[in-house]
Structures are given as C-alpha cells and as structure tokens.
C-alpha cells in the first residue's frame, strides 16, 4: 500500500494511547477511585482551591457571563474559518523563515515529528504537555 492508501488513524484514541481511555468504563473506574480517601481529599482540596480563585476573579466583573459568551462566539467563528486561518498562518510562518508541515491524521503527524527528531541526530526530546499531542499519541510514537 502507498502512503495515501493506508487507512487513517481512528477518530478516538485507542486504549493505552495518551492516557485518554482505559479498559474500564467510567462508572467502574469511578467506583474504585471514590474508595480512595487520599485521592478524594486531594481532589477536593484542588477543586476547592480552583473554585475559590475562579470565584474571586469572576466577582471582579459584573458582565463576566456575557464576556464568556462573547469569547465562545469568537472561538466558534474562528473554528468555522479554520481553513482560512491555517493557510494565513502558513504564509506568515513561511515568510518569517519557518517551515509548516501538514498532516492528515495522527499517524502522519507522528511520522513527521519522529523524522524531524531523527534528522537532528539526537535521541532525547523535551516537549511541553499538550492535549493535541496526547490525542495523537505522540509520546508513544517517539518512545
């Protein structure tokens, strides 16, 4: 099969990829996790901290809900015009001397990154946490 005939990656991460789905259903996993007192205390504490911070910031503006809606509308509009935005990004990055790679699915993206890393001759990579890279299973591909 040529590269273009290879079946695309599945839409959902497979079990074990990016730690995004496990072998148990959520209710099953929840039953076990809820019985862990340390985990409950930690989560409770973290959640309370985040909520308090959020409550303080939200209290600064009387129209925060409208602002949130406006932000959501901007995101939706941008997503709908992603094709235009990405092409413009490519133009600007290229003009600034960068290289833009296009991948049609997770497998292709991982192959491109792996090739780029190999071309440096190095075997260790530092990367930031990224949901996009978790969804495509980049860590597993580079390992």
């Amino acid at each position: 099969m040529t590269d273009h005939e290879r079946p695309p990656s599945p839409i959902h991460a497979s079990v074990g990829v990016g730690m995004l789905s496990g072998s148990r259903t959520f209710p099953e996993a929840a039953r076990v996790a809820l019985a862990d007192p340390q985990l409950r205390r930690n989560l409770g504490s973290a959640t309370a901290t985040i909520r308090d911070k959020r409550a303080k910031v939200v209290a600064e503006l009387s129209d925060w809900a409208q602002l949130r809606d406006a932000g959501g509308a901007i995101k939706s509009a941008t997503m709908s015009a992603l094709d235009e935005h990405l092409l413009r990004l490519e133009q600007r990055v290229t003009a600034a001397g960068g290289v833009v790679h296009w991948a049609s699915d997770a497998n292709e993206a991982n192959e491109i990154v792996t090739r780029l890393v190999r071309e440096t001759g190095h075997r260790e990579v530092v990367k930031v946490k990224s949901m996009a890279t978790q969804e495509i299973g980049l860590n597993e591909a580079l390992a």
Partner: protein
Amino acid sequence: MDRPRVALFVTCLVDTLFPDVGRATVAILERLGCEVAFPTEQTCCGQAHINTGYHRDAVKLVRAFVTTFEGFDAVVAPSGSCVGAIRHQHAMIAAKAGDPALADRARAVASRTFELSEYLVDQLGVFDVGAAYPHTVTYHPTCHSLRVLAVGDKPLTLLRNVRGLTLVELPQADQCCGFGGTFAMKNPDTSVAMLTDKMTDIISTGAEMCAASDSSCLMHIGGGLSRLRAGIRTVHLAEILAATQGDAP
C-alpha cells in the same frame, strides 16, 4: 378584574411521590387570587426521554404538553428542572421532528410556563406570600433553577419574607447535589459522592430543614440524610410558602 387562569403542571415526581408539594402549590396560588386548574390529561415533560436520546418519541410528550396547556394564561410547576426542560427542549424537539408549527406552539406555551418562584416574583410581583414557618432552614439552589432558568435569589427573597423563618446560608450552595436525573442512574457512585459533600455542607449549617425548588434533588438529599439519621428534614419551597400557621409537613 379577571383572576389569572393558571394551570398546575404537577410533574412526575410530585404527582407520584410528593403530592403535598402539588397541593401546596395550588394553595399558594389560590391564596394569591389565582384561579387554578389541574388538567388531568397532562403527562411527563419528556426531559428524561430527551436526555436519553429518545427525541422522536418525545415529540408525543411535547404535543401533549402543548395541547393540554396552551389554553391557559400561565402554567406553573413546582420544579425548576421540568420548566427548564420545557423552555430549552420542547421547541427544539418539535423542530427536529420537522414540525415547525408545533415548535411555534411549544415556544408560545413555554414562554408562559413558570417555575413557582419565578411566577410569584416576576408575574405576580409578590415577595411576601403570607406564610409562617418558624424553623431554621437552609436553601439548596438546584442546578436547573440556578443555571438554566437563572431564578437568582427569588427563592431566597420569598423565604426571607416568611414569618418566623430563620434562613441559614448554605456553604458552597451552588455545588450540584449529584442527582442530575439520569446521571444518578448511570453514575451512582459519583452521584452519591457528590451527595456526601452536599450533606456535609447542609449538616454544617445546623438547620432543621433543607429546602429547594426541586423534588428530585430533595429526594436525593433527603434519602442520604435519612440514612445518616442526621435529624434534618427536606421540605419543598412550596410547602414552606403554603404554611400559614407554622404547620410543617
């Protein structure tokens, strides 16, 4: 002056498990001068069906609701959850089924359908309904009424005007009790864990009663509190507002 013709939408939970809430709702409305009807052909609002994906089947329920209630000046229900569903889902379900005429009728009836505190404060312009209830009460704002209907502090305002009632603020009040209707069925362990947090907050208030505008949440909270033998009872907002001689249910 004509008295407003109001229909009671009793809701499944109240009709089957907590009928006193329905009776209390009628008592309040009649005391405030409304002519209250109870159309017996009413059915479920369909929220559970819609939330579980049975959108085509739910059209029948939307049609039944519209047909039953569109002749009234207003429809009042002792449930933020059901009114939230009616307002946000009925027209959508009809439109999705390819029935724009039904969607229009659904929108029209939904605009005249109110949760109890909304009807009392916004439509009747009343804060003091002449109630007396000499107990310490803490109020849990249920998710639909708080977030979908945005009733704000209407229930608290009504409670503050009840003679003899001591209102104690509930810590972290806007946290969900964990019931969520179908959520409790699909995620029972998480639902109960959330309930534990809610009960901890309720017990910390030292209140005798926990009140809310939704029997679903009250059922969940009340069930948990009874298992704890916590000595705290749950009471619907309607039951408090209907009480005139401090007669607790």
